[in-house]
């Protein structure tokens, strides 16, 4: 009797663990099956490179959406990475001990704010701000509903993720290393530049890729400010679209099977992209763990 219960519990936990595998497989298979119609009709590569999205003629292509996703993600990373590094370094090396905790908590709260809140705030405040103050700096006119605003919200969202990992990584640098450098007369900048950053670079790279994965798949923060205009924008201050924005805006209104299937195919492409980046990040972070 005892044995039976013992085995029962073991298999119960095993079943739950296998469930996790089933979810990942299920996502992959269901996305593939549902996008099969679009793949068969247009071809995977042709779909990814076509610029036409015309529901009335039943012709669909994903390039502007894929383009928007990639451009907004890269721009967000370009803005976020230096700032996040600065915050991480500030938190672990410069901030007075007294303020370290409240400051850390504040940055973590920034990460906890729901993305729909970012989206709403961006629509009512950031977009007008970009339109009034930032776009004129580049000599551009925009309503604020544009790729740049979307990238800026994404950047604000991923800054705390990168910053928190950078802070932890720097906190874990052995004191002996830093102190030997200080002992040689190095100043703070030199210690960070020549000791801390080289020591933590793999973790930081992992953090950046992880943030990249998050920016790729973010929906609600950008859906209000991207514009959902299906074309490749000529400037960052023009509206565009992205994979997530396209799906969020049109999925429930897709009235034909091919329309739905094309949106599923966009989702499938997004899944493959983020899966690849997350695996890459895992390789970087794992490597580090083995070394340590």
């Amino acid at each position, binding site marked *: 009797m005892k044995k039976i219960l013992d085995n029962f519990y073991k298999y119960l936990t095993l079943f739950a663990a296998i469930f996790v595998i089933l979810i*990942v497989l299920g996502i992959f298979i269901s996305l593939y099956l549902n996008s099969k119609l679009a793949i068969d009709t247009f071809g995977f590569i042709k779909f990814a490179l076509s610029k036409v999205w015309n529901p009335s003629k039943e012709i669909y292509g994903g390039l502007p959406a894929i383009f928007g996703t990639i451009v907004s993600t890269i721009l967000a990373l370009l803005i976020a990475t230096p700032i996040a590094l600065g915050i991480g370094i500030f938190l672990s090396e410069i901030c007075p001990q007294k303020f370290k905790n409240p400051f850390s908590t504040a940055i973590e709260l920034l990460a906890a704010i729901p993305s729909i809140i970012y989206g709403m705030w961006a629509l*009512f405040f950031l977009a007008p701000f970009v339109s009034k103050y930032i776009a004129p700096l580049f000599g551009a006119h925009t309503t604020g509903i544009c790729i740049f605003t979307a990238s800026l919200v994404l950047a604000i969202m991923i800054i705390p993720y990168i910053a928190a990992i950078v802070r932890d990584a720097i906190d874990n640098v052995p004191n002996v290393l830093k102190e030997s450098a200080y002992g040689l007369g190095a100043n*703070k*900048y030199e210690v960070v530049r020549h000791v801390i950053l080289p020591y933590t670079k793999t973790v930081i790279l992992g953090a950046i890729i992880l943030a990249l994965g998050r920016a790729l798949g*973010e*929906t609600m923060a950008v859906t209000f400010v991207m514009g959902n205009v299906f074309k490749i924008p000529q400037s960052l201050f023009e509206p565009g679209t992205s994979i997530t924005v396209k799906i969020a805006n049109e999925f429930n209104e897709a009235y034909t099977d091919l329309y739905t299937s094309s949106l599923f195919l966009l*989702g499938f492409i997004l899944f493959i992209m983020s899966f690849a980046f997350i695996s890459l990040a*895992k390789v970087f972070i794992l490597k580090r763990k083995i070394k340590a």
Partner: protein
Amino acid sequence: MGEKIRKIKNILFYVFTIFSAVFGLFFLFWILFTIVIKGITNFNFQVFFKDAPPPGSEDLGGLRYAIVGHFIIVGLAILIGIPIGVLAGTYLAEYGKDSKITNIIRTLSDILTSVPSIIVGLFIYAILVKPFGSFSAIAGAVALAILMIPIIVRVTDDMLSMVPKELREAAYALGAPKWIVITKVTYRAALAGILTGIALAVARIAGETAPLIFTSFNNNYFSLDLTKPMASLTMTIYQFAGSPFKNWQALAWVGAFILTIFVLALNLLGKYIAHKKAHKMR
């Protein structure tokens, strides 16, 4: 000369890191300030008792239906997600340990944590909405559960692995079978850590919108039917914020205020549990 350049570089470095910190705080305060001001100025206690107003009317109406719907969907997700997450984490830490298959599950679970939430929405649409022909609260809850499972798996796995071996051995020496040792000894020792993880996971899913768009959808009426579309705070904010009607926008701000307070409070609670535990151990 070189000395001077070194000094200038160092000063620039300080300026840059402090600027970064201020940049981060600036946006945090800007967002929080907006939410609080807009939330409070539009707030009225009737939001807890009334339902959605007609668009464009003078009446603010209320969010009762969305708050109740939100609690139902998130509550159901918790009921599904916590047992599966904790059990799977238990398998990894207590039974599977470092075998090949366990490490594969660990990796997949970590990857699942970062799968875009809108993709999970599409997945649930494919398996729970399309076959049954209707959006449903259940579908929304399952989508959210899938988002919380990998977080709980990870934290359970980590926390159980940190429980000292001696504690388990003492229990085994008393003749307790493994499942009793796990449920009565190891779980208790790891409780604070697991609870922290659960609080953070709930905070994460409570703020999700994208996985609900094609699953629980939305509804402007009070409903308790789990097999029908159900309103949630996040979907309601999405709908109202994007609308041109002043009273709907006002309600969206109030909803955003309630949601933000709830999510941030859960986060702080999680941190508090972890903090208290750390003090006890010292």
